[in-house]
């Protein structure tokens, strides 16, 4: 009986993981576990810029990670951006600097001329 329960739990987890993309996950660009192969999202053109410190100096986050991770951030995956910003803020705090990291993320959907702003540099993302 317990085995049947575990088998169904595994099955339901597999069904819910992609369903969560449509039902409660709030980042449409995080398509992990959702089986969205060749989805139209991959054709969005996104632009990402990072700013740090009190003066909000722009900096190149690409220099701090694998290009494979940076490519995913540039596609606008916000959970990954949050993880990176969290690590960067922690590093600034450890160095005794004021933790202030801002991100400007804008994307343009395929065939659309309107630029959508997903993250604004007005907000400090450090906790």
């Amino acid at each position: 009986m317990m085995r049947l329960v575990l088998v169904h739990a595994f099955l339901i987890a597999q069904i819910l993981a992609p369903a969560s993309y449509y039902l409660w996950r709030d980042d449409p660009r995080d398509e992990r576990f959702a089986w969205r192969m060749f989805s139209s999202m991959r054709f969005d053109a996104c632009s990402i810029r990072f700013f740090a410190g009190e003066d909000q100096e722009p900096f190149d986050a690409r220099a701090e990670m694998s290009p494979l991770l940076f490519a995913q951030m540039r596609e606008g995956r916000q959970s990954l951006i949050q993880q990176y910003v969290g690590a960067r803020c922690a590093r600034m705090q450890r160095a005794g600097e004021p933790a202030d990291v801002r991100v400007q993320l804008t994307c343009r959907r395929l065939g659309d001329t309107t630029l959508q702003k997903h993250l604004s540099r007005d907000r400090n993302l450090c906790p």
Partner: protein
Amino acid sequence: MSEGAAGGAAGLPGHARSKGVPGRLVDGLHEYWDETPWLTPRITWLRFAFFALLGLDAWINLVMRASQYGEGGFNAAQFPILDVFPLPTPEIVLGLRAVCGFLALRVALGIAPRASAIGTCVAYGLVYFWSQVDTYQHHYLTFLLLVSFCFVPHQQLGGWDRPEAPPSQVRGWAIRMIYWTIAILYFYAAIAKWDPLWLDGSAVEALFAPRPHVLDALDAAGELLGVGRIQLIRGAAWIALLAELALAAACLWSRLWPLAFVGAPLFHVGIESMALHIEWFSYYMIAFTFIMFMPDPVVTRVDEIGRRLLGGLERRVTPLRRSMTIDGADRRFVLALGVGAALIGGAVIYRELPLPGRGLAALFIGVAIVSAHWPRLGSTMVGPSTRAALQAGMAVAFVVIVYRFDVAYGYYSMWANGLQGRGLYQEAIGRYAEANALKPDGPARFYPIGLCYEALGRPREAVAAFEEALRRASDDPEHRERIEVAIRRARQPTTRY
């Protein structure tokens, strides 16, 4: 309904019928998951195809990308809660992927298959959840399939550890789960295409745009059928959606198998022919769907033909496997054989593998070899001496594959490319040089070395590197032109681009 996916469950041995609605429901689920008979050759082939592909994928593609882990001192795990783990390093990722490939190939051959499947799943899952560096959908699919394969009744399948003929049918919930996993994949892939941008052809057009060979083929087809390119693209978009829904249904309803047996591999061959840079996803799906959907009479016939063709080989190998079948009394000898094979295999990897982390790879694979010889009380082992020789041979094969498929060259090239992208030009030159040392004659990475020297403001070295790139370049006029432009540019160091 086909024997493979249907099967009656009346009169189940060892399972008492329950009374009442809940009892009947449990009985029904039990029959559905546990008592469905599947043709043994189908599951043996499925296991072979999946684990052989995974073994090679791990040794070629995944080892090559190990250099990307922990780059720049930042990592993001699949779930933030896992970020408490230390930063992954290329060395440990390489070691885990080397042993993952080794264990996967051992499952494919049927050597200690259950323990090896669990080991493969652990080694693969550790790296997958540790970092988002490799987050293609097929990496997730591989992990889910590995979980199911841990519970497949391996002891009943054909393979090295089973010299006697396997039963004609096997049962097990994990087999059914593999079909469910693929069904869920196809279903949600179709859902993702229920999108105005997909259905009006815009997304497909964007997908085809950088692939002139696909557009040419479309135009040729359009001319033949008398329709325009955009109509064909819209048609292709709808066909892809409907095909995925049909394949999802086929996974769960065996009446559709004859259709899916032909259609699914063709569908994935078509995707692969478009060169969409999705790594080996198409190969996995072609192999899987071809075997999963093969109608039962075809499975039986192919199995018969295979037995006839390989009968001679089987007759020669079986005595080898049966020879020295060891029982509990000879456990120390079995272990000594394993340790010997581990030492040989480990030494070859440690001495010959041209990659950092070769020590960990040698250690992990050595431990894996010994574990397959670990004596268990009362257990017997089939042909331990040939098993030891086979495993030592697999360790050597790892090194051969790394050389044969330019894995180390790719490893250093990717590493250098990342460093170059991060503006660490001097370090990048060092890694490119390591890549080039592995390709002393063929075309190598001199062009990016030239770019790095240019970025460092060292035009003389840049020109030398570009000239070497030109000397080794292919006849492709575009490629040669690009290098010649770079040479002219580097000779005028005041020019800035």
